[in-house]
């Protein structure tokens, strides 16, 4: 059978007819020539030929592909049927497009974060290594260089281990001075990820040697932006922090180091011998490439052994330290994975509700089409043929819904991208920005559309095909299969309500958590508070004395700017990502074995606390009297006071970061707690030290200028720039940031979760209400006769209203009970996403049930109202 003939079989049939006609004529001609009269001759020819139509049909059938033929028929019939009821079709397609589209958009996000291979050649063998302090319940501590170098020398599970440290540079020789972000990496870094330079080379092991380390590898973006895509870039020299570095390689365009928001410059990490043996300062990110065939568990076992040895070898600093290894995938996406899966589950529930709704519509339609189906069955359509026809209609609905869903998904993802994915946060880390609607997502959409169609189409099709011929064909009969079907429709409504309750409760809990989160006092007043980052190149600012001269001048100038009420400097500002702390020793306090007292230290100038609005609870602030060489003092946070001086007055007590030399620092004040990076996190023990008293030969080389100002941000920013430039024309100034934005950026993932889940829940509620409305209206339509009789017998409109609404609310009640029960058993899934609210919060459950009740009441009231207007006489005559 040729496909060509299949599609041209109408024309082919015409030809056959023509051929048969010719045959008849020739035969008749011959008969005539034999002397038979022409009419008789024609009949004889016809007799001889047999049934021409049967012949044509036989040939026609030979030209068709059985199932395709039927399918084509079914599709055309389905299109006609759907066009005949545009209202039904539009509602069904909209419902499906929303349900499927939301799923596709969510899938595109989950796909890129959890399913697709990471964009590094060695991704499957790359692990991320941390240190852990099980006794202090800390599982993600950055690695100390001493530990890193020891691991690199001794661990056999790895082909390569590499350390990374974030860095920023002042770039001074390509136009205006500017800040560039980069990473200091140990030479094996690119080998671990499997990345090769597109021009030049990456690093060699000997690049690590002091003196040979004035080489850099640059990102494609930097190469395009700063060097104009110069093909001779390799070999060029750049002045970074006033030191010349020569470019040895350019990275591929898509390369991005996973743990940095943006890294334009990579240079070999340069640590002094003393640094390399430091086991106390934890600041490195370490990645490792497992040897082929070595599993994560085997490597972990080796590292456990190694860290146990190191605990003995370096008692004190390494006591209580272990190694924690996670795959690169987990490291990148572990934080967002649970929430994404919850959302994917939620959007799946929305799709189920969509299915239930469309199934309900189809069932209602099945009722009105009962006669049509009965007629077809009576004319000889088999049950399987009827089911096939009805399923074709569902598939068509599913596919058209899927096409619109693709558009919905596209717009949804676009909206998500601009609202949530552009900020530096966990999402950026997980690579969520790469989410696109592409072939994979389309395939998923198609698959889910057809699956959905089967799901919502099969039951109604089976129900509708079970027609009772004699009953359905009788004029005016209301059919006999309704009872059973009404039960099924009610079950669908109960299921929809139950699913909606689960989603509403989830959204409610997240909403309450979110409100709790934004109500958290960060410990400072972010409104009117701005900051810019300044880096002082150590070449010109080698001592703290030089730095102090600069900072005094800067602050004096900035304080005189119009609109500025106060200004101060700090080395690490809240919500800037840094969590580093130092181990310390409290005078007169004997630590328990394995316990380390730690403080988050901040170097601040006298006005910093006032500028930030951090409340001074007791004692005094850092003042101008705290000069280099003066008494070392510190202002501690309330948590530090409570943790390390429990039940005592800390003021006047002493502690030290340097246990050997006993450089005591005296506590002179206590401040309120400040959230460093995460509103949801517990407060940490902090200490504020005088900026001016920083070690003379290890000055503060990177700090933030915090300014409280009523000036418009852009005017303030340019004013700050010009003040910095007036002191040192070669100093670039980083982009000014508003603290309010930094805080709101930090809760973008939570906002994403709460917003999506709320939208899903609202969608679910709307669908469930629409479904309920449909079922109740339909039931009122079916019971017109019965209601008419009741009213004729004296039922008041009030009674009818109560009866109809009661019927609907009964369904809602059953659904709500099941939904609440399901919610309570599912809440452990949410638990990790909640903040300041219990997973089975009664208030939320109460609110959800109330909202559901009100909406359901409204959905039932409209048809119930219609029922009360039934005119008994009209209703009874209707028979």
């Amino acid at each position, binding site marked *: 059978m040729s496909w060509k003939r299949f599609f041209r079989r109408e024309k082919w049939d015409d030809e056959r007819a023509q051929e048969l006609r*010719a045959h008849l004529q*020739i035969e008749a001609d011959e008969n005539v020539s034999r002397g038979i009269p022409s009419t008789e001759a024609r009949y004889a020819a016809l007799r001889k*030929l*047999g049934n021409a139509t049967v012949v044509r049909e*036989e040939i026609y059938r*030979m030209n068709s592909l059985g199932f395709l033929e039927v399918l084509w028929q079914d599709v055309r019939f389905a299109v006609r049927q759907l066009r005949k009821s545009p209202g039904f079709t539009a509602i069904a397609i909209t419902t499906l497009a929303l349900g499927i589209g939301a799923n596709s958009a969510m899938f595109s996000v989950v796909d890129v974060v959890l399913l697709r291979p990471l964009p590094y050649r060695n991704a499957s063998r790359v692990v991320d290594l941390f240190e852990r302090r099980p006794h202090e319940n800390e599982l993600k501590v950055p690695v100390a260089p001493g530990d890193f170098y020891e691991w690199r020398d001794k661990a056999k599970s790895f082909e390569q281990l590499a350390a990374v440290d974030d860095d920023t540079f002042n770039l001074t020789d390509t136009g205006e001075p500017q800040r560039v972000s980069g990473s200091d990496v140990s030479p094996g870094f690119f080998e671990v990820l499997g990345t090769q330079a597109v021009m030049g080379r990456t690093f060699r092991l000997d690049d690590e040697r002091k003196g040979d380390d004035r080489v850099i590898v640059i990102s494609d973006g930097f190469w395009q932006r700063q060097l104009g895509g110069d093909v001779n870039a390799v070999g060029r020299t750049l002045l970074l922090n006033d030191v010349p570095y020569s470019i040895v390689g350019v990275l591929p365009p898509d390369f991005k180091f996973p743990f940095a928001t943006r890294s334009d410059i990579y240079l070999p990490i340069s640590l002094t011998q003393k640094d390399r043996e430091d086991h106390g300062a934890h600041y490195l990110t370490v990645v490792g490439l497992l040897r082929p065939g070595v599993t994560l568990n085997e490597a972990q076992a080796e590292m456990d052994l190694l860290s146990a040895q190191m605990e003995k070898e370096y008692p004190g600093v390494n006591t209580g330290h272990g190694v924690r290894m996670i795959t690169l995938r987990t490291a990148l996406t572990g934080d967002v994975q649970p929430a994404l899966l919850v959302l994917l589950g939620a959007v799946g529930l929305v799709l189920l509700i969509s299915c239930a709704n469309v199934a309900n519509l189809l069932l209602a339609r099945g009722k009105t089409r009962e006669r049509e189906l009965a007629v077809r069955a009576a004319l000889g359509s088999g049950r399987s043929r009827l089911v096939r026809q009805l399923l074709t209609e569902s598939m068509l609905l599913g596919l058209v819904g899927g096409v619109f869903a693709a558009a919905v998904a596209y717009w949804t993802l676009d909206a998500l991208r601009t609202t949530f994915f552009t900020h530096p946060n966990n999402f950026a880390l997980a690579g969520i920005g790469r989410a696109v609607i592409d072939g994979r997502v389309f395939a998923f959409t198609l698959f889910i559309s057809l699956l959905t169609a089967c799901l919502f189409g099969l039951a109604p099709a089976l129900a509708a095909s079970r027609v009772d011929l004699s009953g359905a064909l009788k004029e005016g009969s209301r059919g006999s299969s309704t009872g059973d079907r009404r039960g099924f429709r009610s079950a669908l409504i109960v299921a929809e309500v139950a699913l909606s309750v689960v989603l509403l409760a989830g959204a409610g809990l997240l909403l309450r958590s979110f409100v709790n989160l934004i109500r958290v006092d960060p410990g400072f007043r972010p409104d009117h508070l701005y900051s810019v980052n300044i880096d002082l190149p150590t070449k010109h600012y080698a001592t703290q004395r030089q730095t102090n001269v600069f900072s005094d001048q800067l602050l004096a100038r900035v304080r005189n700017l119009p609109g500025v009420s106060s200004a101060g400097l700090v080395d690490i500002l809240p919500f800037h990502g840094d969590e580093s702390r130092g181990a310390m020793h409290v005078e007169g306090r004997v630590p328990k074995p394995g316990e380390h007292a730690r403080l988050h230290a901040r170097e601040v100038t006298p006005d910093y606390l006032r500028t930030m609005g951090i409340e001074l609870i007791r004692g005094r602030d850092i003042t101008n009297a705290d000069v280099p060489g003066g008494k070392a003092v510190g202002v501690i946070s309330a948590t530090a006071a409570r943790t390390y001086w429990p039940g005592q007055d800390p003021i006047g007590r002493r502690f030290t970061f340097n246990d050997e030399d006993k450089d005591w620092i005296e506590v002179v004040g206590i401040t309120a707690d400040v959230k460093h990076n995460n509103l949801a996190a517990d407060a940490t023990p902090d200490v504020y030290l005088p900026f001016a008293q920083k070690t003379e030969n290890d000055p503060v080389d990177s700090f933030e200028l915090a300014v409280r100002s009523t000036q418009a941000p852009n005017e303030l920013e340019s004013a700050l720039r010009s003040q910095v430039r007036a002191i040192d024309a070669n100093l670039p100034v980083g982009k000014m940031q508003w603290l309010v934005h930094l805080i709101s950026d930090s809760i973008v993932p939570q906002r994403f979760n709460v917003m999506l889940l709320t939208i899903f829940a609202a969608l679910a509620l709307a669908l469930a209400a629409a479904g309920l409305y449909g079922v109740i209206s339909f039931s009122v339509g079916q019971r017109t006769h019965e209601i008419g009789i009741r009213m004729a017998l004296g039922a008041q409109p009030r009674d009818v209203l109560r009866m109809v609404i009661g019927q609907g609310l009964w369904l809602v009640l059953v659904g709500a009970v099941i939904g609440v029960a399901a919610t309570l058993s599912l809440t452990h899934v949410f638990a990790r996403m909640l903040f300041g609210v219990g997973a089975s919060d009664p208030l939320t459950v109460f609110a959800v049930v109330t909202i559901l009740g009100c909406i359901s009441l409204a959905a039932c009231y409209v048809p119930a109202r219609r029922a009360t207007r039934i005119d008994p006489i009209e209703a009874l005559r209707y028979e």
Partner: protein
Amino acid sequence: MAKRGAAPLQGEVLQGTLDLLILQTLILGPAHGHTIAHVIEHRSDEVLQVEHGSLYPALHRLEDRAWIASFWGTSENNRKARYYRLTPKGRKQLIQQTGRWDQLVRAINRVLKPATE
């Protein structure tokens, strides 16, 4: 569909036979359906009465297998008619099928003759 299922062996044998006769007829040169039907009747001394209608599905099937090809032409008495001709593939088939047919006839005869003698 029911047709296809009924007595397949018999149908196949008869169908195959008709195909063979058509191919044999066409070895003399192109002919239209009417001619083919009459040639078969005449040459079998009117024993094989072809129902003319059944010829056309067979022609269609043969053309599908590319054993014969068709074209529109004009008949002896100036009527437009569809002509069929043997393709090289059909010629090969005819030889093969004729051989098989002879085998079959001989075999059947060997079985039947002792009984009649």
